[in-house]
């Protein structure tokens, strides 16, 4: 395999990881835009998405419906998105809304605590929840070759599904009425309320979108690695938040750019740096810190004016 081939291969891998990170980052940036809160439990909804899919798999098993037809896959995706967003809205109403007016420290810690509670609930409620759980291969097997690079169909489909989700979010935010409500609240919540935007409903729908998108990312992650684990949301949350910040907190396209960048940084540092494989995330986080020092508003973020 030539150097260029290797670069190409890692680029594809990076894009795939990046799409998943982007989907998580979109949630962070939406919540920050609408509620001005960083929801650290968001990573755990990503985990919850994959576990909900597992629940549905066992339900389908019990009903004797085991094939990998398109309908089956769609059922898993849609079901998991619906279940995860129900949990998302419920937990927000119970835990996040009461602390919206509180100082940032409190909301930070509440959402971290909520994350622990969700993670542990999954661990306790699932049979042998502490062990990694196998995830079914939902997408067709096989591969094709371009030059010296082997590309699996599965990976291409993951990439396509991720991009479709991103397009869907883009359309919802920009082309629908509720999308303009979300943008209005993000810009100025008081003015939006005066113009008749239903705040409660907008918040709920924001969390439905965020959780559903995170659930898709969780399922894609499960398909990619072939297994899921109850605590995978913690690191995914940190990466999603990092990606949202690199891109510019509050900007959806920033979150997508940030996620792709983070994925590429991980795979490329693993490929190019001498001790990169184990330390790939160290380099990625180092870049995050550098970003925060030199461009704290991110790539696509707006300027803030509160420097002293």
């Amino acid at each position, binding site marked *: 395999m030539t150097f260029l081939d290797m670069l190409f291969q890692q680029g594809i891998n990076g894009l795939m990881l990046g799409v998943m990170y982007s989907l998580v980052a979109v949630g962070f940036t939406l919540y920050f835009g609408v509620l001005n809160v960083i929801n650290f439990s968001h990573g755990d909804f990503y985990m919850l998405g994959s576990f909900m899919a597992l629940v549905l798999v066992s339900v389908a098993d019990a009903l004797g419906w085991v094939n990998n037809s398109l309908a089956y896959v769609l059922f898993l995706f849609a079901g998991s998105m619906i279940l995860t967003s129900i949990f998302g809205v419920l937990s927000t109403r119970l835990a996040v809304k009461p602390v919206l007016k509180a100082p940032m420290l409190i909301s930070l810690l509440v959402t971290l605590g909520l994350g*622990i*509670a969700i993670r542990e609930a999954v661990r306790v409620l699932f049979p042998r929840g502490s062990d990694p759980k196998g995830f079914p291969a939902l997408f067709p097997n096989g591969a094709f070759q371009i030059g010296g690079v082997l590309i699996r169909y599965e990976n291409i489909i993951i990439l396509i599904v991720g991009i479709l989700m991103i397009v869907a979010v883009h359309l919802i935010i920009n082309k629908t009425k509720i999308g303009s409500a979300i943008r209005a609240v993000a810009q100025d919540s008081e003015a939006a309320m005066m113009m008749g935007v239903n705040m409660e409903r907008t918040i709920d729908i924001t969390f439905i979108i965020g959780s559903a998108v995170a659930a898709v990312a969780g399922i894609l992650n499960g398909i990619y690695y072939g297994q899921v684990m109850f605590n995978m949301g913690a690191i995914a949350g940190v990466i999603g938040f990092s990606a949202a910040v690199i891109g510019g907190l509050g900007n959806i396209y920033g979150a997508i750019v940030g996620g792709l960048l983070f994925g590429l940084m991980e795979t490329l540092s693993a490929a190019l740096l001498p001790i990169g494989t184990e330390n790939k995330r160290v380099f990625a*986080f180092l870049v995050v*810190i550098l970003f925060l020092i030199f461009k704290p508003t991110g790539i696509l973020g707006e300027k803030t004016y509160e420097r002293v």
Partner: protein
Amino acid sequence: MKTSLPKNTNSRSDLVLALGLEIAAYALLMALFLIEGGWILIVAVILVIAVSVLSRRYPHLRTRISAAFRDNAKITGAVGIVLLLIVPVLLKSSPYWLFMLVTTGLYIMAALGLNLQLGSAGMMNLASAAFMAFGAYTAGLLSLDLGVSPVITLIAGSLVTGLFSILLFVPVLKTKGHYLALVTIAFQFMVVILLDNLEFTGGPQGLKNIPPFNLFGYSFGTTINLGFTSFHFYTNYYYLMLVLVVILAIAAQRIYHSWIGVTLATIRDDEVAAKTSGIEINKWRLLIFVVGNCFIGLSGAFYAHMVGFISPPNFTFEKSLVLVSIVILGGMDNIFGIIVGSLLLVLLPEKLRVISDYRFLIYGLVLVIMLIFQPKGIIPYRVRTYGQSLNNWLEKIKHTTSDSNTEEKIG
């Protein structure tokens, strides 16, 4: 201070009240250790909730109690010291709880440092476990590879942690709020990944056989043998922990009551106002960040010597989270609150081992519920009142000086 009662009228009953409360709290704590089973835990939790509700409902009760403790500070202090000193005797049969108590002490030491950053200066630090790792690995490596005496490694662990916190110097000064939180989280993850992968830190196996602490040739790893009876070697560490906690608590108290403490509170409450009154924000933020991390590093170094074995899972993000919870739940910028918070958050989960599978679930839920209903912590922060001394000072100024002089002092 209009609430404080005139002296002498109630002094006898005040003394009884203060001593009674002190001994009751102590007895409850010891009962938690010594009595098996979950019911004592339920009793304890109900009592703590009752006290916190009562003190909220009847504020004058709280001022009366704190006045009672203040007026009888010497007696209650002496009784408190005696009670703390006899703990190893009471826990003679359960070294496990003695160990947990020492661990709680370590959390108190680290939380005192974190409180300087988070409580006093309002700087988020979610990497406290990573800084603890610096202290622990410094102590471990120095004593394993170079054979340095543990007294020195303890101090070195603390100082090296302070030095390493300068690594975060630029990001800490340039970011705040959510961004500072992210910087510290990223740093925390980086440190744990590096500890896992670097060779000289022993990788996932960590460092083994770190020699126990010793002082003038007396090894703290030996059982105390008094001839007729003997005490587990944790007793040594218990007393060392007490000494260190007292030193750090006094240091933190002095910082709190000094102009540094007031300066930090100004920075925390209103950065713009602080800057316009001529406070060098960056200097103080950096200073307190380093000093706080020195406290945290000391705690890590102590842990390395006591347990003798450290590895990356000891210093994960979850530990940072526990420390931040201690500071916020105990009560920000409040040393007594830190101690209560550490006891609750470190000892209660241990007691919950009875229902061990659910304890982190309960921990997460309790954290969320507490923060929603009691966001200011168990012992809420109160604005400083320099009652008598401030009045004296104002009197003096009235007599002696002109306006310009007072302004200088305030600045």
